[in-house]
């Protein structure tokens, strides 16, 4: 493997919460051995499944979260396999686990046990609430992490009779994993200097709490509480809708309205090219906007003409959005220098020409099926030590014999 983490050996003892961390490391060249129980990880039973037929080698969930990893089956309930686990860790750079607090100690496989034989070990513990302290025993899921930790309060609709919304895609777990990877990379670089490993504790509730942008700092700095709004930033004060249903039924986000004189010139030009001027009766204000250097948003209350110009610009971009198919609106707007976006479904993003040109959709071979499938690609493009998927997720126990051979 050619990634920047080539040569780094990771033992992963993770369930649904920590899988993502191991994948991020494995896709960058680390050797990640996933220790699975006999019968396989629980997530091999999670859908969706290949052709909707369940089976331990057919879980697309497992495929997604375990690319490039090796599978080593160990029954940690058995003393012999616990010794094998300890032997693997003794030769590893990193142990990453998402066991509930107390479980690793009960197995005799906690940091205090392992570091005596491997003082260079970096042991990463990912838990929902940390290893000790208030709430560490509470039951949780991705939903409750995002609801209790802050993100859900900011997400949802203008209509507050509808509940707050958890964003899709397991972001509570993935956010904990992002911090796990960042922190263990710090520990790796520190080890380059000191020669010593250490214990890294990741708290999923805390990770959600510091991934909420203005929700946190509005409270910390000013004691203010943001309120959720449809498809745009939650705010202390309500803001204007920016999510428009386009002519093809898809949505676009219209971003920041025109403010500079040149913005109004390009906006009016766009309106004319589309032949829409006659239908947009506020167009004279766009002409007035062209005569101004810029609209000072702080002055809108005292300058009624500026307020009318600013309102016309905002209405014009929404007017155009509603009359074009979403993709036309997105590309025409951006070509004219307006920061607008299309609300793609995940699969539509994979079909977009820009991301295809960048090589984002990535073909992964599944030789035992004699097929190839497309996976999402690299989150970062390294010039030299590149991200890659060398192998699809492991078959259950595929690497057990090879991994344990040195210890048997």
């Amino acid at each position: 493997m050619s990634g920047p983490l080539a040569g780094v050996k990771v033992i992963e003892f993770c369930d649904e919460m920590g899988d993502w961390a191991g994948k991020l490391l494995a896709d960058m060249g680390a050797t990640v051995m996933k220790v699975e129980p006999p019968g396989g990880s629980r997530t091999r039973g999670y859908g969706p499944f290949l052709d909707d037929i369940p089976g331990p080698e057919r879980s697309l969930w497992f495929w997604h979260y375990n690319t490039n990893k090796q599978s080593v089956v160990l029954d940690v309930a058995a003393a012999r396999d616990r010794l094998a686990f300890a032997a693997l860790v003794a030769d590893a750079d990193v142990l990453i686990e998402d066991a509930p607090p107390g479980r690793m100690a009960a197995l005799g496989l906690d940091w205090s046990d392992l570091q005596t034989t491997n003082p260079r070990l970096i042991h990463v513990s990912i838990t929902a609430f940390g290893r000790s302290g208030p709430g560490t025993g509470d039951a949780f899921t991705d939903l409750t992490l995002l609801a209790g930790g802050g993100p859900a309060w900011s997400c949802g609709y203008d209509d507050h009779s509808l509940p707050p919304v958890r964003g899709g895609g397991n972001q509570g777990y993935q956010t904990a994993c992002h911090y796990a990877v960042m922190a263990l990379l710090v520990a790796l670089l520190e080890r380059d200097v000191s020669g010593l490993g250490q214990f890294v504790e990741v708290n999923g509730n805390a990770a959600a709490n510091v991934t909420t942008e203005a929700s946190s700092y509005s409270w910390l700095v000013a004691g203010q509480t943001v309120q959720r709004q449809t498809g745009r930033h939650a705010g202390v004060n309500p803001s204007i809708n920016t999510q428009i249903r386009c002519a093809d039924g898809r949505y676009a986000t219209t971003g920041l309205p025109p403010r500079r004189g040149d913005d109004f010139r390009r906006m009016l030009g766009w309106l004319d090219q589309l032949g829409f001027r006659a239908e947009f009766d506020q167009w004279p204000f766009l002409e007035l906007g062209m005569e101004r250097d810029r609209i000072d948003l702080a002055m809108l209350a005292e300058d009624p003409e500026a307020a009318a110009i600013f309102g016309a610009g905002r209405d014009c971009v929404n007017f155009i959005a509603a009359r074009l198919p979403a993709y036309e609106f997105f590309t025409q707007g951006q070509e004219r220098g307006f920061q607008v976006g299309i609300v793609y479904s995940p699969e539509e993003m994979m079909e977009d020409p820009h991301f295809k040109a960048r090589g984002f959709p990535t073909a992964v071979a599944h030789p035992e099926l004699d097929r190839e499938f497309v996976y999402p690609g690299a989150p970062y493009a390294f010039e030299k030590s590149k991200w890659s998927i060398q192998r699809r997720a492991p078959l259950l126990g595929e690497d057990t014999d090879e991994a344990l051979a040195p210890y048997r």
Partner: protein
Amino acid sequence: MEATALSHLRICDFTGQLAGAGATKFLAAFGAEVIRIEDPVAQGRWDILRGIPPFKPGQAGLEYGGAFNNHNVEKLGITLNLRTDRARDVLRKLVSVSDVVSENFAAGVLDRWGFGYEELKRIRPDIIYVSNCGFGHIGPYVRYKTWGPIVQAVSGLTFSSGLAGQPPAGWGYSYMDHTGAYYMAMAILMAIYHRNRTGEGQWVDMASTEAGAVLNGPALLDYTVNGRPLRRPGSPDSNRSQYPSLAPHGIYPAAGEDNWVAIACRDDEEWNRLAEVIAVPRAADDRYKALAGRLTDEDELDRLLCEWTRQRTAAETTGLLQSRGIPVTPVRRPGERIDADPNTGAWGLWPTVQHAAMGAVRVDGMPVHLSRTDWSLNRGAPCLGEHNDHVLREILGYSTAEIAGFRADGVI
């Protein structure tokens, strides 16, 4: 306590907003020397967060932006007027003693200033250059401009957040500014690790739309493998859990105004315990005893639950279910999770920093602890040019007279 884990690293930092500044904040929290460069002519306003609310009560202006402070704690701040040749010389000197140059301008900005990757490499052959913008530096949309909500929209994250039959709810904040910064921090750290092994620097081109798209989870493979799109009738419904299949699973109304409680049952056993607490005959219905039956009419199951949760506060429901081992939590408001969740308090998640103008102010801390070399946040974000003397004299070796000349001539 001073953080030491990364104190051997120096970052020449052009980042701003959150998408870039969040990355170097993480490094600074672990002791990296992050030197943030700002434009004295524009008074640092290439980062719009400088000088915009929230402000502490009674404060306002360029040095008082609460978001700016939050994202730039523990960094050093210098000003360089890069329109002048002398400031460009200072920058060259800084790059020559830095491990990393980081930026999140629109694609091509640094290049136009004459400090693109090729030039950075000439100054320091093993330099690590990490750029982070919405669409990256290569591809048909290279000129397109973004901010968090556009990145989220294009990557699929806005679409996948919402209730059935409603428009996308999206993320009510720039989730991808946070998360783009996390990937940028990872990229910087991994590139340094690679350099330590090989002596080789490199450019990492980040497109935060791609960092966002990798987060869509297994739903994406359901399309590429099974041909089932997420855009289909009744989908998505992100408060529910399709994969893994769980029910009930949602956010339910609690007594009072805009109060909510999240509940999930991970297996039949948890549902049976919940049904006992609800204690109405409908909950004990045999058809709900197994997951398949609960999934058959999830709307009806949710109505049953709503009738029950509505009658009590979120705290009461949480207490009742938590003691029975069922995943449950109030949907916490900012004040509730910051000042009243004992878990975040005990973690030390909201440290107080000292800012030269704002005074004492609390900020987001780090959700990780390292046993030997932990993070530490003490110093607030730099005021404009606050560390000009320190950086130019102590790090770059300019004399007091030279620095005075820079100041007099508008170089810094």
